[in-house]
């Protein structure tokens, strides 16, 4: 029993120690926060994908949605792909509304207005940004021979995450809030026979930061 416990605790402690450090900052601007939460309305979180040199990662959007839904079970977050498919082709990168007033034009399409009413979508949150890897350094050599193989060396890199969430109110056709989060962290990979990655959870920290701020906006309990 004690051995089993030790087998679980030691890797757990090791993994806790073996994560790089992350620095995160969150800025928030809120213009019109719902005082009682969003009630039985739904919220959808979409990634902006207009830029040519980066793409807001779908898994980041999913992470923020899960963060909100997990902490306040009363908030229904519609999945990004589910929403994009249900409203195809009106929220594709080429056709998506760029400003809240564009929703009026979209509502002129009767099937679109009916679908949005059916989905009870009150807030649309656009997230724009990405996580990039910078400043890689170090070197590592790996070899394999009849007696076995292994690696030797050291690598390090930094990850920078920069995301901005813009909250649109579908009913008022207005932007009602904006949250910006930046996170940076250094990851390391020393290798003596076996490479040991010490990864800084930069994107996860940015997801928690932006998710927490959005939760404060959307939830009546926060």
């Amino acid at each position: 029993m004690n051995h089993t416990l030790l087998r679980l605790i030691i890797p757990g402690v090791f993994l806790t120690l073996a994560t790089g450090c992350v620095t995160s900052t969150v800025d928030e601007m809120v213009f019109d926060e719902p005082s009682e939460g969003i009630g039985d309305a739904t919220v959808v979180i979409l990634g902006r994908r207009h830029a040519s040199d980066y793409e807001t990662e779908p898994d980041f959007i999913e992470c923020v949605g899960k963060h909100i839904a997990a902490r306040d079970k009363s908030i229904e977050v519609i999945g990004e792909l589910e929403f994009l498919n249900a409203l195809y082709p009106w929220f594709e990168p080429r056709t998506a509304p760029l400003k809240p007033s564009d929703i009026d034009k979209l509502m002129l399409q009767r099937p679109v207005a009916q679908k949005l009413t059916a989905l009870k979508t009150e807030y649309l949150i656009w997230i724009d940004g990405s996580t990039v890897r910078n400043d890689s350094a170090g070197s590592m050599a790996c070899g394999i021979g009849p007696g076995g193989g292994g690696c030797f060396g050291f690598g390090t890199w930094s990850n920078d995450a920069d995301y901005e969430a813009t909250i649109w109110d579908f009913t008022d056709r207005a932007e009602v809030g904006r949250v910006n989060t930046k996170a940076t962290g250094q990851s390391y990979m020393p290798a003596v026979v076996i490479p040991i990655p010490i990864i800084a959870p930069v994107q996860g920290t940015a997801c928690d930061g932006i998710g927490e701020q959005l939760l404060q906006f959307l939830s009546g309990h926060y």
Partner: protein
Amino acid sequence: MSGSMIFAPDWRRALVVLGALALLAGCGPTEVVVKGSFPPPLLEPLPLTLGVWYGDDFAHHEFSDEATGRSGSSWVVKSGEAQVQMWDTLLTGMFDRLVHLDDRPGPGQVTPVVDAVLIPHVDELQYAIPAHTNVKVYEIWMRYRFELVTTDGQPIAEWTMSAYGKTPTAFMQSDQAAVNLAAVVALRDAGANFATLFTRVPAVRDWLQHRPQRRPRHAAEVQL
């Protein structure tokens, strides 16, 4: 040595052949057969019966690219099946009725009763992977050409349209999977572009405004 190969048991020969094939397969081009699912469009259907004809070059569309250096790899991107799947889904949702034609319409052809026939072509396809551009996105760009013709093949309109899809480098995702995803995004973009552009193409708009109204069909004709 060669003698032992000649009289080797069948299973050994099979093993040698399989090994050789496996080695040769490693030298072949990277092949991507584009697969995806495409949603129907959320639109008021246009009151038209549209015929569509997919030529062989479209229905079996593929793009190949030879490696330029020893470190590069050759690619074959087969998008024909996904193209047909996407356009069928889109056009079915965009028009009252969609009819598939077996042949290109022309004088003397027996064509079902349709208002017009759409003939799509992929004129050009380009792709980029991070190894080409040093930017961590996979990209597909396509240029389509559409012909809208009457049932006897007379041109109504012809126009071109581009489509673009990209996807970020994803952890534990192969180049093939990423190129496939970029192609699916490009096909969705093609559908979105076509759906919002179709009635704004000047020649199509003129035709829609001035086209002769077909007489209502009898029930028997509808069933045919």
